[in-house]
């Protein structure tokens, strides 16, 4: 599928050295998930599976509402449920978060990916997996600060939310946003979504959530999937949403400096051999050596 190789117009492309031809700057888009409007109905999950023709195996109940129990290659989004007794309000809160790819502006998956063009970032910010180029190594899983991609055991490809790039490409919003009964999920330009979020945050503050805010983490240069949270200061309450996500330093080391240092070390080692050989010449066995050996045998015999 080498026709899936064009690097033109893309903002970022995995495992591609050298600068991409400058993309025409397109309007960044974003999906805004207003957790304070979300009722955890899973319409997004069903709409996602329906649109993308995914049918996950039917699991058992294991004492929780998360079904499937985790993201899978066939479940690209998942409602995660957390119960928290808010000491300030004296009320139980059932914090429900739609988990899935955050479409980071600085995507760790893309950084980690070794297969050219298997992960791309369009100029509107959407991070997409191009299955035809994917080799199924799972590096994206390690690169992701949100633990999102999953590798299919059926075809050994990595899968995650595409932000419905197929729908967005024809001017429609993602299937989840379309379905969302309470409009907790909205989709539009990132600027519009930020404005809408500001409106929502003001409303939440009016209702006593003084720490309400927009989750658009700077550690990954912002995301194209954002959350309005009642408790922005306590992101981990929402089923372990990282407070300050960033690409793991280990991944940075691995795919950044490490990559060059490694190649350099190998180069230096090889160069040492060449230089040494030039200077020292071959280490040859001499005639005397052979004679000495013969002598030794004779003596020994």
């Amino acid at each position: 599928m080498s026709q899936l190789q064009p690097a033109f117009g893309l903002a970022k492309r995995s495992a591609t050295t050298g600068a991409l031809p400058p993309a025409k700057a397109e309007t960044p888009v974003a999906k805004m998930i207003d957790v304070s409007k979300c009722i955890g109905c899973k319409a997004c999950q069903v709409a996602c599976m329906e649109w993308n023709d995914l049918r996950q195996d039917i699991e058992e109940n294991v004492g929780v509402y998360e079904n499937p129990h985790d993201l899978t290659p066939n479940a690209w989004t998942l409602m995660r449920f957390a119960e928290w007794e808010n000491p300030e309000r004296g009320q139980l809160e059932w914090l429900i978060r739609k988990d899935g790819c955050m479409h980071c502006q600085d995507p760790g998956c893309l950084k980690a990916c070794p297969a050219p063009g298997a992960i791309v970032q369009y100029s509107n910010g959407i991070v997409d997996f191009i299955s035809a180029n994917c080799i199924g190594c799972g590096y994206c899983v390690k690169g992701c600060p949100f633990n999102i991609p999953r590798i299919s055991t059926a075809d050994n490809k990595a899968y995650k939310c595409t932000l419905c790039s197929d729908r967005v490409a024809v001017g429609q919003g993602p299937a989840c946003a379309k379905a969302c009964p309470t409009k907790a999920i909205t989709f539009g330009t990132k600027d519009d979504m930020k404005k809408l979020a500001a409106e929502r945050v003001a409303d939440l503050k009016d209702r006593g959530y003084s720490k309400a805010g927009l989750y658009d983490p700077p550690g990954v240069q912002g995301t194209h999937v954002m959350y309005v949270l009642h408790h922005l200061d306590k992101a981990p309450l929402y089923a372990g949403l990282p407070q300050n996500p960033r690409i793991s330093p280990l991944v940075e080391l691995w795919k950044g400096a490490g990559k060059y240092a490694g190649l350099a070390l190998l180069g230096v080692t090889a160069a040492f051999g060449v230089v040494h050989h030039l200077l020292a010449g071959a280490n040859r066995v001499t005639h005397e050596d052979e004679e000495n050996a013969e002598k030794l045998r004779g003596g020994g015999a």
Partner: protein
Amino acid sequence: MSQHRGEAPLQVPRYSGSARINHWVVAISFVLLMISGLALFHPSLYWLTGLFGGGPTARWLHPWLGVVLVIGFLGLFLRFFVANLPERTDWVWLARLRHVLAGREEYLPEVGKYNAGQKFVFWAQAFLVLVMFVTGIGLWPVGLAYFEQLLGFKATIDQRRLAAVIHAGAAVLTIAIWIIHVYAAIWVRGTISAMTRGTVTGGWAWRHHRKWLRKEIGKEPGGPQPAE
């Protein structure tokens, strides 16, 4: 040139047939692992996956090659670890590394089957193979699932990330050592026949592993026999 007139030089057996097969199994899997690994290590080398028929095959093959290498290396390890146990003279040898590099072996103590450099390669690769194996499992979904079930644990994403970094670092080191190993075999002329024909010349042994030569000659009345 180093021969008697019209007479073949003394041939000293160094490696048995099975040892040589074992070595080459490890060597071939190592090279294939190196190529497929490097292909995924840096985008500029991704084209190397073409040698395997594409990225997915390279990705799929790599861990299984690793399994082959680990089993093969275990064989080498069991065969040779006794001969690689450190000796007092190794320190002297190391202290005179300057002379080693200059090829002035007359300044070095007599060496047994392996010199300190060879022992270093042996132990370092043994250690790195172990590290690569363990961390490689962490990067290999199929293998990881198997071992997680077998051992009853669940690797965290951070552990897997750490595994990736260590695997890559260890790979660089192991390749660097491999380069030294290969270079040494080329630089020290007459070495390669040990792994091809199984024998070295007496002169080679006299020059580089005199203590070993003495031992081999002294061992059998009928002359040196292949030994490991």
